[in-house]
């Protein structure tokens, strides 16, 4: 989806490199962040169309951070997906519990991640 912007927050450099390469190949503009502290600035400057949150992050788990950013930064129009390699069933439940717009298992591979990102951005566009 050319021109659309995606932020990936993950403390693993390898995951960030692989994810951004796959998204960029599909035409997305990508910003990668390794810490929660960088997200406020990126929301303002980069204005993403979708955000991926790793779950096992330092300081605060991704689902805690997701609730925080959605409520405290009033993010209502940008889909935020949990992005993790934990058990898919657990990931789905945690995404549901924290009010995520969806989830992507890292075990599915980056190609599937790009598809899911595209589906969410397309459904947001339709809405």
């Amino acid at each position, binding site marked *: 989806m050319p021109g659309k912007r995606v932020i990936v927050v993950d403390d693993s450099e390898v995951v960030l490199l692989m994810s951004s390469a796959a998204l960029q190949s599909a035409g997305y503009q990508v910003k990668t962040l390794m810490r929660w502290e960088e997200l406020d600035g990126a929301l303002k400057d980069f204005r993403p169309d979708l955000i991926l949150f790793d779950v096992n992050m330092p300081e*605060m*788990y991704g689902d805690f951070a997701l609730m*925080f950013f959605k409520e405290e930064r009033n993010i209502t129009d940008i889909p935020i997906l949990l992005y993790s390699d934990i058990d898919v069933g657990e990931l789905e439940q945690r995404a549901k519990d924290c009010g995520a717009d969806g989830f992507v298992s890292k075990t599915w591979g980056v190609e599937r991640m790009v598809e899911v990102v595209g589906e969410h951005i397309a459904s947001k566009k339709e809405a």
Partner: protein
Amino acid sequence: MNDEKSQRRHARIEIILKVEYDSSEGFLADYAKNASHGGIFIATNRNFAVGDKLSFDISFPGLLEPIRCHGEVRWQRPPVKATEEKPAGIGVAFEFKSDEQKRQIEELVKKLDQEDSEDAGQEPPFRVLVAEDNPLVREMLRFGVRKFHRTGPAAGRELEVIEAENGREAWEQISGGVADLAIIDYYMPVMNGAQLIRKIRETETLQSLPVIVVSVGGEEARQDSYAAGADLFLDKPVLLGQLFSSLRRLLGLQQQAGG
């Protein structure tokens, strides 16, 4: 005494009391709130420093003889940080010069407690200390506390979150003995979490303050925190549900112990 108050080591009573200092400035418009057996909050714009020793008289309508008090300033809210709900002032820990003085304060608090109950007076705020040097993590913890408080055991009371970015700042804010719960990061500059907890446990009015430590420090931080007197230890990253269940467990235990 109701359930919320019974969580505290010393019930805190909010009432307006006149305060008159031993100074040449004569009668002042300062007033006191939140009296407990351990200390008192005095609303004032005067410039006091933490550690200042004070001698003052407190009185209120219906009390024939003012009560002579001595104490030490334990924390200060300067005018620049004051709001309509939270006036500028100082937290003063009582220093009793005699058993008689202690008895007078205990009687005063008891009397105020009775009047407070009869009058269904306003509940004191539920005060939670969040001590964490990372500003965003501090904000996240405050968010978690607010979410918990909406349905927590003290939901009927106004929530006041006291924030501090290091142990010393935290100590200055709570050493007057007015806090209901503390969430403390282990690794903080100036004074770390364990040092802060030791000071808390050495203070009579804070000995039973529920304390949760959060840290990335693993087993070493856990052991040091418990040795200092922490009630619970949570590893970072923190899960919101885990924070909630820990708060419920801790405050539930407090409620049972107090009631």
